[in-house]
């Protein structure tokens, strides 16, 4: 089973966001492996281990700094890593990112392409299905349960108010949702081993972006609220405010 796991370096969810020139100001921001990509890496490793043969290759389209996150994925147990390097990568839109990733998948052998359901920086929810579409392979998004057997996958996902079971044949792409597994931590041995594993850095062109950023702003401030009172005694006033002032009841 040959698996490619796509990973992105993103700001931690606790990071404060400041904007300069319509971009995130990276100063003082802690960067981490995208949390949803941890589910994808874990699932990739577990599938390879169950198959007893094959490889897991981590690929990231990122700036030079993303080597750190790729080392983390190697320490978790991936066999090899590739950085598709370009300083503009962290800001690239979903369609452009998908084009770069798809172009660099051509010529690689794979049974599974594993993605996070979303990168928590641009929150586009789209790179997985876009890469799959460009490569002409099926894709199942936001998967919470996955079975791989006899050349096909059976996946379960949550949609609004329901669960879906979806089948597709290999090769296939999957985007991973929380609940799929519990990602392993890199062991000390894993971290030592990762230092000797191949991490290839390939400079790539980005080409013309599919999307242009016109403006980036902080969210509008919420109008100041008020405390209507303390305990159960405040309930009548709350309900009256909801009904007569806010008019939501």
């Amino acid at each position, binding site marked *: 089973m040959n698996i490619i796991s796509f990973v992105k370096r993103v700001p931690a*969810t606790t*990071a*404060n*966001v400041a*904007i300069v020139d319509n971009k995130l100001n990276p100063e003082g921001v802690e960067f981490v492996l995208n949390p949803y990509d941890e589910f994808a890496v874990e699932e990739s490793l577990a599938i390879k281990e169950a198959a007893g043969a094959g490889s897991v290759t981590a690929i990231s389209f990122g700036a030079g700094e993303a080597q750190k996150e790729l080392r983390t994925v190697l320490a978790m147990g991936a066999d090899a890593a590739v950085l598709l390097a370009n300083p503009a990568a962290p800001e690239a*839109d979903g*369609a452009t990112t998908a084009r770069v990733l798809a172009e660099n998948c051509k010529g690689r052998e794979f049974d599974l392409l594993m993605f996070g359901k979303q990168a928590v*920086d641009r*929150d*586009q*929810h*789209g*790179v*997985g*299905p*876009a890469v799959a*579409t*460009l490569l002409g392979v099926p*894709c*199942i*998004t936001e998967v*919470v349960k996955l079975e791989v057997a006899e050349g096909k996958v059976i996946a379960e*996902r*949550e949609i*609004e*108010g*329901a*669960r*879906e079971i*979806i*089948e597709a*044949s290999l090769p*296939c792409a999957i985007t991973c949702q*929380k*609940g799929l597994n519990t990602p392993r931590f890199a062991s000390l041995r894993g971290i030592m081993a990762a230092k000797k594993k191949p991490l290839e850095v390939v400079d790539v062109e980005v080409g013309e972006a*599919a*999307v*242009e*950023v*016109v*403006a*980036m*702003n*902080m*969210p509008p401030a*919420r109008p100041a*609220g*008020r*405390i*209507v009172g*303390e305990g*159960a005694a*405040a*309930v009548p006033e709350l*309900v009256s405010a*909801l*009904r007569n002032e*806010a008019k*939501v*009841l």
Partner: protein
Amino acid sequence: MSNILVVLESREGSLRAASLEALGAARTFADQRGSSVIALATEKCELDASLLGGAGADKVLIADAAGHSADGAAATAARVAKESDATVVLLSATVRGRDLTARIAALLGTGFAADCTAADAEAMTFTRPEFGGKAFTTIKINGPVAVASLRGNFFAAAGREASAEMSEVASEAGVSMVTEISSQTGGRPDVSEATKVVAGGRGMGEAENWSMIEAVADAIPGCALGASRAVVDSGWRPHSEQVGQTGKTVAPELYIAAGISGAIQHLAGMNSSKVIVAINKDAEAPIFKHATYGIVGDALEVLPALADELKKLGL
């Protein structure tokens, strides 16, 4: 003439309400650009010509696929977009809609904007949250077609008197198929689709106390249940109810947060709600900084009183 295409979402033959909001947004684009709104159902379903016409559609095309295949639906939508000379393709930012948005853009060789909270028909720009709602980016799509998914509760159906012209179209075959769908919200709307939400956090104390949350929800028609991650991780509530950065993003008219501290990752999922009510026994809890109305007190006493007061209204 360039047209605006809306890809409708249906499940087991019935239309999802979120699609009506996309039709309303499409109507705004069409009126600005002097073009028509074409609605496409990518699988067989029952549609009402005056409901869709009223929401904004001029024409409705129903494809003959028997179930949902994401790749099949995307191929049908991309073909119809080309045939109808669409310059804008709009979808709902649901699980299926986000998936289709990226695929349709890839098939049309263009960019996409996911989860938009605003659109400017004149400037042809889309505004969308990034970094879990800590920033809002306005973008323009380079390329012949703009493909965008729209977040629920940010756009409204047109509300006009009109009947759409209905016809059938052929569907493209898909390779991956949905083989089974099972409903799981027990009659309540899903938290990501509801206009009213009552959510509980660790301050609720234990799973059994959720009967108090449910009593409040029962007193408000169309009210969904929500939960913080702490509650989901404790196994008190299912992940499908989790609101926040690693759960669902919601923007209801009313969000009641009981025993929720207001961590940044929770706020990321509900901060654009129109009215936020916080019930927390700690007057210093961060949630109060974001609340429209707050009650400082024990949720286990406040919620039953709230349920009683709401029942009196007979909503």
